[in-house]
């Protein structure tokens, strides 16, 4: 799989021939948390699957299966690789689990709590509200909103990662945002 993006803004062109370099590793480590968050979005918020996807993505990057041509920002390229891997893995997993694991188990697994000592109850509730609202949006809308709000990317960058036109990304962004607000309002009304 070759991931080539159009925007020419990279300062990492020197790393093309040296995927093993320390600089490359440091950049990957810096991106790690965001990369995992993105993998979670691409995997329907299944933590274990997201970890697997991230591992496979790093593996492809290290083996040279996914090559960085320096035509985009490093983060854009990494996010693109993760998205491709996630879509492949998620499809396989969904097919397998349809037969072997009931949906309730999947949901329980997705909500598995690891360690929330440093997360306030309010943050936890907000995240939970957002999660359930985002689940009701389309994949594209969810992905665009994550990249713009969670990763503070521009719509152009999001379009680049998702391999769609900027106009299309903007449409997904606006419709997704409107739907998300509506869903959150409905939820609040129901809770009151």
């Amino acid at each position, binding site marked *: 799989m070759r991931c080539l993006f159009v925007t020419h803004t990279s300062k990492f062109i020197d790393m093309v021939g040296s995927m093993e370099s320390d600089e490359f590793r440091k950049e990957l480590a810096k991106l*790690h948390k965001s990369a995992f968050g993105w993998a979670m979005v691409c995997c329907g918020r299944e933590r274990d699957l997201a970890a697997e996807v991230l591992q496979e993505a*790093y593996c492809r990057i*290290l083996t040279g299966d996914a090559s960085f041509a320096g035509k985009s920002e490093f983060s854009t390229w990494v996010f693109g690789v993760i998205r491709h891997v996630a879509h492949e893995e998620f499809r396989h997993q969904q097919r397998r689990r349809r037969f072997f694991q009931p949906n309730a188990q999947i949901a329980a697994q997705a909500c598995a709590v*690891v360690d*929330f000592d440093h997360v306030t109850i309010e943050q936890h509730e907000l995240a939970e509200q*957002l*999660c359930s609202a985002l689940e009701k949006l389309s994949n594209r809308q969810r992905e665009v909103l994550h990249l713009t709000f*969670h990763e503070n990317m521009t719509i152009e960058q999001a379009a680049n990662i998702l391999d769609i036109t900027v106009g299309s990304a903007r449409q997904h962004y606006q419709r997704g945002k409107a739907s998300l*607000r509506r869903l959150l309002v409905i939820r609040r009304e129901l809770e009151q």
Partner: protein
Amino acid sequence: MNEDNDLKRMFEAQRKVDERLTPSFDDIEAKSRAARDFTPAASDRKSVSWPVTVALSAIALSLVVGLASWINTSRPDEPDVSSASHADLQKLNQVCDSLLVRINELDPETMEESSTVEQETDWPTGTDSLIPFETLRFNARKSP
């Protein structure tokens, strides 16, 4: 704008939660490196792919050829009809005609030979020298 800020606050909360869920970079990287050691590089895979393709193609071809020959040999032997002559066929026709006559003369109620009609069937001569019935039937079907 206010609503955007609300959403940003929610996404920020989600980021905090996600950060708690994130496995360490070293762990993931170590696993990736271990997996990479078991995975040949893309260039290596290309170099070994063609012999594998050739071998698999050869196996598939031999299987197809074997299957075809097995199907061919397992078909039942057809009777040899080359020896059946036109005269043999005419004799068979005579036999069939005689049989039809006898059948028509049967009593439809009892299916026994009618006592009123006593007629000796005129069997064609030389029936002993007929070739096997199956062969003749096959040939008769083919003849115009």
